[in-house]
């Protein structure tokens, strides 16, 4: 499903965020990406979202080389992804409901379908009672759960999550992980970047440890 072949990402002045990275994640897998701050986790996820292309090597997802996609193909590729951003990227001017419904809406889904999915994911993350609040009226953890709900709303084929439990307490973190495991059980590939080694231990799935842009441990 996801394959990196000798991928390097070089930012100006010789800073390698990723260096000759090769990895393979199969369809339906649930994989953690871990490593110290600045290891390159977010960079790898950014390449997978096709926000950026590798300086060297190839990122292959679903058999397609991401660097070779046209603008329109990038759009349809992204529609098959669910992404949880490290900084949430919630819209301050929209309510929780509108934030989540925004995605099916701008993808042109039918209204009935928009609503059904939106209510469903809000219930999953346990925030249907706050759906008319604005993001700034939510605690950090609540905002994080909205971000997760938004990534799930579009029934993605792959879920990429950058530090989805950074603002959650251990119990809630585990709850969210169980939710993602559920989604994963229905066939969705899940890739999660996190620092929380305790969480990885508790969930007990495959994990890749990055450091200085290289994979230093697989477990």
């Amino acid at each position: 499903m996801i394959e990196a072949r000798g991928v390097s990402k070089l930012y100006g002045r010789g800073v390698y965020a990723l260096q000759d990275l090769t990895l393979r994640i199969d369809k339906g897998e649930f994989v953690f990406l871990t490593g110290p701050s600045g290891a390159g986790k977010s960079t790898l996820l950014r390449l997978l979202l096709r926000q950026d292309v590798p300086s060297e090597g190839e990122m292959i997802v679903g058999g397609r080389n991401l660097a070779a996609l046209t603008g329109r193909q990038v759009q349809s590729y992204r529609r098959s992804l669910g992404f949880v951003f490290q900084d949430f990227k919630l819209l301050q001017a929209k309510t929780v409901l509108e934030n989540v419904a925004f995605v099916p809406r701008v993808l042109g889904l039918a209204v009935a379908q928009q609503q059904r999915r939106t209510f469903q994911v809000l219930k999953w993350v346990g925030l249907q009672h706050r759906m008319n609040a604005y993001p700034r009226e939510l605690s950090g953890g609540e905002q994080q759960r909205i971000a997760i709900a938004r990534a799930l709303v579009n029934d993605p084929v792959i879920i990429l999550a950058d530090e989805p439990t950074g603002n959650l307490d251990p119990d809630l973190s585990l709850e969210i992980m169980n939710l993602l495991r559920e989604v994963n059980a229905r066939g969705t590939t899940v890739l999660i970047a996190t620092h929380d080694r305790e969480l990885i231990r508790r969930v007990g799935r495959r994990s890749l440890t990055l450091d200085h842009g290289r994979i230093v441990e697989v477990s």
Partner: protein
Amino acid sequence: MRALTYFVTEAAGSLWRGRRAASLAILTIGAGLFVLGFFLIVNTNLQRLAARWGETAEFAIYLRDDVSAEQVESLSRLVHDSGVAARVDQVSKDQALERFRQDFPDLGATAERLNRNPFPASLDVRLRPGASRAEEAAEALAGTLAGSPGVADVRYDRRWLARLNGVVRFVRTVGLIIVGMLALAAALTVANVVRLAAHARRDEIEIMQLVGAPLTYIRGPLVLEGVMQGGAGAVVAIAALGALSALLRARYGGAISQVLGMESLTFLPVELSGILLLGGMLLGCIGGLMVARGVR
């Protein structure tokens, strides 16, 4: 259809959320279009005025007191044949005196005291408006007439007409420049305002890009927002112009018409309203496109 609904609700929602900025914007656009429209009205009226005055330009042939009826007849024919005249009025000495009394009512007493009528009879020629080469033809006629028997003097409002034409040309040039600059300013304003809207929505736009929304969904609301603001600005301008026109017509309509010799000033023709509205929306569209283009 779904896309259109989305565009409209998004654009309207965005305008409503940023209603303070939007009203400021609409007012700005409105002010610009108001000045534009106002200027167009003034220009139209000045042109009409010039045309009218041109029409009423006179060519007066003063007759000697000892002129004969045949001489008057032949002079009259001469004028008619020249083709520059729209009308020829014969004014007798008595009519001239009467006209003087009307023109200078305060001096009626003086006129009464006159022992004899000092005013000459005349042929008053109203020039045909817009006759081609009318000026030269009138000049030629003036020369011929001046030498004809029975004619005391020929008066032709030549200097004034030249000046009037100069003013009209001047105003027209000035008008083109002003209108052009104002349209530019209005377009820039709209672009600015839509830019502000786009800026306010840049998080939204970023997310739309990241979830793979079609480009049209990203750009549509921006362009529509521009169009809506431009249209709203135009409506404000039209309303203001209408109000001003009504006010001016009520207050000064009579006085102005009298002084300037126009029966009816044009205030706010429907076509102008239409032009302003379409123009405002077009400007808004251009501004919106300018911003939307920046969104890859």
